[in-house]
C-alpha cells in the first residue's frame, strides 16, 4: 500500500504498522539492477538488494564502496540511471525523499538533518504531513511524541533545543523523527561512528525493539564486530558491486574482513631493503580534538627513521586525518610535540611545517593542497614562492620560476597543456603529481603521505608507490597513511594500526599477518 500512511490506533495509543498483508514473504524492499553514475565514475553497478520485514540487514563495505549512494537512491535523494525499486511488491518511482517517506522509508544520515536552534519537538513535527492545519499543533504532537517515547523507550525532552543535546541524544531525535512518521524501513548510515560504546549498546537495544515490531533496519557500517552483533544478514559491497551476502549466523569476522578489504594485489612492488638510519620524525604523546571537540587522537607516539616506510593502516575516521593535519600545521594539538630532523614544529602554524623539511601530501588534495583555479605553475609555487630562489624584493623571478616549472613537469611526467594550464583541467593522478613535484623536489627529510592514491587509477597509483620507495632509498623517513590495506602492506617496512585515535599494534611489513591487521582495524584487540 504505497502512498498510504499507516493510521495510529488511537484506542491503544500505540503507533503500529499496518496489518501485515497476506503475502507475508513479499520483501519490503526490492532493488533490482540499480546503477548510479556520477560524472566519471560508477558508484553503484547493477546492484540487487532485498529487505524483509522484521530484518536487520547490514550493508558492509569500505568507504567509497557505494553503500551510502545506494541508500540515497532508495531514499529518493539521488536519481538512478538503471534498475527498478519495489516497495512491498509494487514498483515505485522515488523521485524525492517525499516519495520515500510516503512509502514508509526513513533515513538517518551520517550528518544529522536536525536544526540545532530548534527544539526537539519542532524538529520532529516538521516531518509530518498528515494534518492539513495551518497552525502548528504542538500540543497534539507532544502527546504523540511522548507516546512513541514510552513505546520505544527513547526518552528526550521535547522542549530542549537540539544544540544542547549530545550526539547520542541527537541520534535518538533522528530515530524518533522517523518513528513519528511511522517509517517501516529505517536506513541508518554509520550510526555508531559518532557514538560512545555505551550509546552503541543502547542503540542496538532500540534497533532490536524495532525489528521485533516488524520494522526493518538497514545498518550501514564498516565495523565488523558491530555488524556481527546486530545484523541478521550481511550484504557486502565493494567498488560499487555486491560481492557477497550471507546470514550473519553463517559467517565470522575474519571472513567478512576478507570480503570487505581482501582484493587481489594487482601490482607487485619490489621491496627494497635499506638499513634504517637515525630517527627523523618524532611524535610524542599527541592528543588532538576533531572539529566537533571530540578526542580524535589519543596519546599518539611515533618514531620514524631514515630509510624506512612506516605504514599507518586503519579504517578512515579513526584519527588519521587529524593526526596528519597537526603535522601539516593546520590543526593545533591539546598536548604533545612533533619534531622533524631534530627541530621541533610549531604546531598549528603551517609555515613552520613548510620550512621544516617535511613533505606534505594531504588527504584532501583539492580543498587543502591545491589552488584549483590557478595554474599548474602557481600550484608548484605555493610553498616556496617567497624564497630567495624565486623572489627578490617582493618581485617574482619569472625566468627562474618558469625553468623550475618546466623541470618539474618533465621530471614528474605531469600531463598538462603546459605550466600555465589551470590546475582544474588536470586529472586526479596528475594533480597528485603536482603535489609530489612540489613536495619532493626539495629532497625532504620526512615524507608524510595521507591517502596518496585515493581515487586514482592504477597507473598513477603505481607511479606514486614507486616514488615513495625512491624517497625511502634516498634516505627520507616516509609515513604512509592509508585505508587501503594492500597499499600499506605492499610498501611498508613497519605497520601500525590506528583505531579510534589509538595505536592498536605494530607489526613488521614483510610477512605481516593480514587477518591480524584486519582485526586491529576493526577494533578487535588480541
Amino acid at each position, binding site marked *: 500500500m504505497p502512498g498510504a500512511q499507516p493510521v495510529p490506533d488511537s484506542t491503544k495509543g500505540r503507533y503500529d504498522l499496518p496489518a501485515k498483508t497476506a503475502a507475508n514473504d513479499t520483501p519490503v524492499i526490492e532493488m533490482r539492477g540499480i546503477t548510479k553514475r556520477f560524472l566519471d565514475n560508477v558508484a553503484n553497478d547493477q546492484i540487487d538488494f532485498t529487505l524483509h520485514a522484521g530484518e536487520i540487514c547490514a550493508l558492509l563495505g569500505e568507504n567509497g564502496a557505494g553503500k551510502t549512494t545506494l541508500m540515497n537512491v532508495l531514499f529518493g535523494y539521488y536519481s538512478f540511471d538503471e534498475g527498478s525499486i519495489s516497495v512491498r511488491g509494487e514498483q515505485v518511482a522515488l523521485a524525492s525523499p517525499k516519495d520515500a517517506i510516503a512509502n514508509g522509508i526513513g533515513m538517518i544520515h551520517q550528518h544529522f538533518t536536525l536544526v540545532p536552534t530548534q527544539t526537539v519537538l519542532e524538529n520532529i513535527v516538521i516531518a509530518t504531513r498528515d494534518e492539513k492545519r495551518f497552525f502548528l499543533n504542538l500540543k497534539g504532537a507532544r502527546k504523540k511524541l511522548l507516546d512513541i517515547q514510552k513505546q520505544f523507550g527513547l526518552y528526550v525532552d521535547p522542549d530542549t533545543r537540539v544544540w544542547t543535546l549530545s550526539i547520542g541524544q541527537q541520534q535518538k531525535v533522528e530515530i524518533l523523527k522517523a518513528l513519528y512518521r511511522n517509517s517501516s524501513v529505517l536506513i541508518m548510515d554509520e550510526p555508531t561512528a559518532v557514538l560512545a560504546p555505551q550509546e552503541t549498546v543502547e542503540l542496538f537495544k532500540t534497533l532490536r525493539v524495532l525489528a521485533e515490531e516488524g520494522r526493518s533496519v538497514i545498518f550501514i557500517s564498516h565495523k565488523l564486530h558491530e555488524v556481527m552483533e546486530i545484523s541478521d544478514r550481511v550484504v557486502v559491497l565493494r567498488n560499487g558491486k555486491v560481492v557477497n551476502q550471507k546470514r550473519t549466523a553463517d559467517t565470522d569476522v575474519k571472513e567478512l574482513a576478507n570480503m570487505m578489504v581482501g582484493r587481489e594485489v594487482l601490482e607487485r612492488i619490489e621491496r627494497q631493503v635499506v638499513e634504517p638510519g637515525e630517527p627523523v620524525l618524532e611524535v610524542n604523546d599527541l592528543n588532538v580534538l576533531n572539529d566537533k571537540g571530540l578526542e580524535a587522537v589519543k596519546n599518539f607516539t611515533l618514531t620514524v627513521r631514515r630509510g624506512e616506510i612506516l605504514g599507518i593502516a586503519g579504517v578512515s575516521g579513526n584519527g588519521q586525518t587529524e593526526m596528519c593535519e597537526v603535522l601539516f600545521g*593546520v590543526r593545533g594539538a591539546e598536548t604533545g610535540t612533533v619534531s622533524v630532523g631534530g627541530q621541533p614544529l610549531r604546531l598549528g602554524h*603551517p609555515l613552520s611545517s*613548510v620550512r621544516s623539511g617535511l613533505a606534505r601530501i594531504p588527504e584532501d588534495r583539492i580543498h*587543502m593542497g*591545491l589552488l*584549483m583555479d590557478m595554474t599548474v605553475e*602557481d600550484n608548484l609555487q*605555493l610553498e616556496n614562492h617567497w624564497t630567495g630562489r624565486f623572489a627578490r624584493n*617582493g618581485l617574482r623571478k619569472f625566468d627562474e620560476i618558469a625553468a623550475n616549472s618546466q623541470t618539474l613537469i618533465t621530471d614528474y611526467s605531469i600531463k598538462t597543456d603546459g605550466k600555465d594550464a589551470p590546475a*582544474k583541467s588536470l586529472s586526479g593522478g596528475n594533480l597528485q603529481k603536482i603535489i609530489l613535484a612540489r613536495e619532493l623536489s626539495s629532497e625532504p627529510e620526512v615524507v608524510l603521505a595521507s591517502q596518496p592514491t585515493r581515487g586514482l587509477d592504477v597507473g598513477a597509483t603505481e607511479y606514486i608507490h614507486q616514488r615513495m620507495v625512491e624517497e625511502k632509498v634516498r634516505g627520507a623517513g616516509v609515513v604512509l597513511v592509508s585505508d587501503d590495506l594492500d597499499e600499506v602492506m605492499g610498501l611498508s617496512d613497519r605497520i601500525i594500526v590506528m583505531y579510534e585515535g589509538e595505536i592498536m599494534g605494530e607489526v613488521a611489513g614483510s610477512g605481516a599477518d593480514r587477518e591480524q591487521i584486519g582485526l586491529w582495524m576493526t577494533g578487535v584487540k588480541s
Partner: protein
Amino acid sequence: MIRIQLVKRTPLTGWYRVLVPLLAVVTTLVLSAIPILIAGGNLWQSYYYLFYGALGTRFNLLETFVKASPLIFTGLAVAFAFRAKFWNIGAEGQLLAGAIVATWIGMAGGSAPAIVLLPSIMIGGFLAGGAWAAVPALLKTKLNVDDVVSTLLLNFVILHIMGALLFGPMQKTGASWPISEEIVEAARYPILLARSRFHLGIPLAFAAVLVIWFINSKTVFGFRSRAVGVNIHAARYGGINTTSVILKTALISGGLAGLAGVGEVAAIQYHLLSDLSPGYGYTGIVIAMLGNLHPVGVGLAAIFFSIINVGSQTMSRMTGVPSYISGVIEGMALIVMLIFLLMNEYKVRVVRK
C-alpha cells in the same frame, strides 16, 4: 515533467575569458533596445547619438575621460579587493573618506606650493580611504564580521560623518547648506589639455591600472592575494599569512577608492559637498565584475560606462529617451555578466522525467 538542471563543466579558458565580458557588453547593448523602444526612441538614431555624444567631438571625448577617472579608481578598488575575496562594497564610503581628508588638507594648505600640496592630498586621501577599508577588514579577520554588510553600513557612517563636518567645522562661512570652503589653488589638479576638464587625475587613473596590474602579476603579494581569493584554506596550508594579506588588500583597495574622492574634490568641485559622488563606489562594483576583476578589463569597463553616461546625455537631448537609461544599462550589464560568468562554469541541461 521537465526539469532544468545546472551541470558543472570544464570552463573555457584563454581567449574565452576575454570573450565573456565582450559578449556581455554586446548583449547588454542589444537588450538596451527594449527600454529605448519603450521610450519611443528611434533605435539607430539612439545608438548613434549614444556613441556620438561620448566620442564624436573633442570636448565630449575628453569629457568621457573625465567621467571615467573616478570609475577607474573605484572599479580597481573593488576588483583588487574581490580578487582576494574581500567583499568590499564600501568603495563609496572610502571615496568619501579620501575626499574629506583631501579637502581638509586643501583648505588648510595656506601658501604651500603645489609640489607639496598635490602629493599631500593624494597621500592623505589614499591613506584615509585605506584606513576606512581597514576597519571592516579587521572586523572580518579578527571578529569574523561579514564584510559585505559592514562595508555597506560604513558607507552610511562616513556619509553622516561628512554631513556633520559640512554642517560643523568644515562648513563654508556664512553658508546655510552643507558645503565646505574651496581648497587653495595649489592643491588643485592641473588641467592638462586646454579648453577641457582633462586633469591630472586621468593619467593618474591609467597609471593606477598599470600599478595594480603590476602588483597582481609580478609581485609576491599579488600571488598571495590571488591564492587567498581562490582557496583560503590552501593558502593557509601553503604557509601564507592570510590575515595580513586581507588587511593589506583592504588598505590598497580603500586607498584607490580614496583617490577617486581626491580627484572629484581637487579637479572637479574644488570643495566638499554632500552629493560629491553620484554612486561612483557602487558603480565600481559593476565595473569590477564587468572587467572580470582584471585591471585592464576594469579600465575598459570604466570607459564603457563613461561612454554610456556621457553619451546618454546627448541621446536624451536628441531623441527624448531619458538619460537615466544609463542606470538601466548598467544594472543590466551586471546581471548579464553574472549569468555569462555562470555559463562559463555550468551548462544547462533539460531533463525530461
